[in-house]
């Protein structure tokens, strides 16, 4: 990785409380910022590396769809699922991908409400990633139902059996939670993008671009009467997405927590899942953004300060996750339930101990390196550790799902779960789908939220006039609140 990534020359991570944090470096003004971000999309031919990456990722995605086709043709027996482990990789992958999405909503909604101005450089990218992750997540429960042609029974639609779904089941709550999450994330992402699509429309030189960007820009003309309602809508959407994002992984955790399986039936699951989701999501944002800022020359917009701040969030949430692991063990001991105690001893020292210790090493130990500023400000080190976190968080879901099921109350029914090649190739293929969508996004849509970044840019001669940034996005002027 060290060969691909160069060290940053501009370091804006020094903290001086007397001055506002410098969020955009390199002397950008409104004009050059627009040119830079639009230039990536407007370049006539995509770089060769982009085509190579797209070809590779799209083939992986195609492989996943082939595996799904085979699954539908043969049945779920092609997976490693069997008694006693009826939930295998499909559920693990679902929880993994939904979790990845959480960082995008956190950055776009919660950091917006908290007036964290640094979010403007990364929120578009993170939100796009959310949507693509939810797309990948949605595939797995869809194909896991076995008879995919009746998957619409998940929804409360009238059917020939005159039956309705069971609303007391957490699996149905999940349908509503993930469905709402996907819809609201998409609305939020698109709403934020309309002014930038209008920029691309106004700069378009070809007919295709004029029509395509023009259609989706909805005729936006930067009217302040529109901005006024737009900002109110954006604030409301952020306010709605904030409890929503916390609820989604809580509901996902209910799939486990409301059952009576030892190791699942715990009240710590909702907060523990949410912390893990944000942890893994930020790691994925970094995994995508560090190469992207390098290859597209965005180091002055997504600065070292942004990376360092995200590293701090990863450190905080990673420590919370470690604390949750410890709490689970404590409660198993303190609760005095033999089945629960066995479940946890089995988790750490049983047949899946290898998976458990991979999880602990990646999730609890590796982010602790972020206590060192030298590591927090080295893109190569950040990338490596974030990939470890991604691996660790997948294993966390594997450990939770599989260890509890493989050895439950009845020792005669114990078993050892192994995935098949189909399981593995389907999961690998989902990364292909995810990165295919990311690559297409980087090529055709503005990956930096230009209109938002312009509100936090330092202005030339600004001190002569008004001593604050021009933007309204963050309401930095108390008298206007």
């Amino acid at each position, binding site marked *: 990785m060290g060969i691909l990534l160069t060290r940053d020359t501009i370091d804006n991570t020094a903290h001086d409380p007397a001055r506002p944090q410098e969020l955009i470096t390199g002397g950008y003004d409104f004009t050059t910022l*627009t040119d830079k971000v639009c230039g990536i999309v407007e370049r006539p031919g995509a770089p060769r590396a982009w085509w190579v990456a797209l070809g590779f990722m799209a083939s992986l995605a195609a492989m996943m769809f082939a595996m799904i086709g085979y699954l539908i043709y043969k049945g779920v027996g092609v997976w490693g699922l069997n008694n006693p482990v009826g939930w295998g990789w499909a559920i693990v992958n679902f929880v993994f991908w939904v979790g990845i999405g959480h960082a995008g909503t956190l950055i776009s909604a919660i950091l917006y409400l908290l007036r964290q101005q640094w979010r403007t450089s990364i929120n578009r990218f993170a939100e796009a990633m959310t949507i693509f992750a939810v797309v990948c997540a949605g595939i797995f429960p869809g194909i896991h139902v076995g008879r995919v042609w009746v998957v619409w029974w998940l929804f409360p639609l009238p059917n020939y059996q005159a039956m309705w779904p069971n609303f*007391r089941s957490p699996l149905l709550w999940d349908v509503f939670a993930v469905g709402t999450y996907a819809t609201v994330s998409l609305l939020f992402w698109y709403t934020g993008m309309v002014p930038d699509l209008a920029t691309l429309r106004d700069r378009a030189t070809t007919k295709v671009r004029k029509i395509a960007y023009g259609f989706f820009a909805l005729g936006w003309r930067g*009217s302040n009467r529109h901005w006024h309602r*737009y900002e109110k809508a954006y604030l409301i959407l952020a306010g709605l997405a904030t409890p929503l994002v916390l609820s989604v992984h809580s509901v996902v955790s209910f799939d486990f927590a409301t059952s009576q399986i030892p190791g699942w039936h715990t009240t710590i699951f909702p907060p523990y899942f949410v912390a893990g989701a944000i942890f893994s999501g930020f790691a994925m944002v970094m995994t995508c953004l560090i190469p992207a800022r390098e290859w597209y020359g965005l180091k002055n917009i997504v600065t070292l300060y942004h990376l360092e701040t995200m590293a701090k969030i990863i450190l905080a949430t990673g420590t919370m996750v470690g604390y949750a692991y410890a709490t689970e063990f404590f409660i198993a001991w303190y609760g005095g339930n033999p089945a629960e105690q066995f479940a946890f001893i089995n988790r750490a020292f049983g047949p899946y101990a290898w998976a458990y210790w991979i999880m602990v090493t990646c999730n609890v130990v590796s982010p602790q390196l972020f206590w060192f500023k030298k590591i927090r400000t080295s893109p190569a080190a950040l990338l490596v550790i974030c990939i470890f976190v991604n691996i660790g968080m997948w294993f966390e879901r594997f450990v939770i799902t599989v260890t509890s099921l493989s050895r439950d109350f009845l020792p005669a029914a114990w078993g050892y779960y192994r995935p098949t090649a189909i399981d593995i190739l389907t999961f690998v293929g989902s990364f292909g789908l995810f990165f295919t969508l990311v690559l297409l996004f980087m090529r055709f849509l503005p990956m930096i939220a230009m209109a938002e970044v312009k509100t936090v840019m330092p202005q030339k001669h600004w001190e002569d006039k008004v001593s604050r940034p021009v933007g309204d996005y963050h309401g930095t002027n108390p008298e*206007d609140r």
Partner: protein
Amino acid sequence: MATRETHGLYGYLAEFREPWDLIDAAAKVRDAGYTRWDCHTPFPLHGLDRAMGIRGTRLPWLVLCGGLAGLTLALVMQWWMNAHDYPFLISGKPLFGLPAAVPVTFELTVLLSALTTFFGMWGLNLLPQHHHPLFGSERFRRATSDRFFISIEARDPLFQGERTREFLAGLGADAVEPVED
């Protein structure tokens, strides 16, 4: 006022290079009593709402209605489907219990609120509107990039052709141009 002078004219467009000049100018347009005018900026400009005298939007009230509709719909749906239309007894649980209904109720409340916010905002803004006279101006293309504009429509009761043009030029605009309807 459809005089010969304003026939076929949408209005005048004034361009500003610096955001603070626009805010100063907007306050003067407001004080002059114009009503059919607007500012166009690449990003939401701080203090411009006040300078233009824009009043609050009723969007939050629409969202509240949308949210309450989602809440009611979710509760009625769950009760009707599992306790009334097809009483569905499972694990001895009550046919309808509020705690078990909370997740779906919450999700549908958020969903309908968000949809109301999205469609309500575009609806109140009268968008999408893919054709607009201002798009005829070459200069106006920079309104979504790095320039700041004021437009005064010819339909404004105070609009006086050449006098309005001079008024705009006197506000420190870098350029003022007529826009055809």
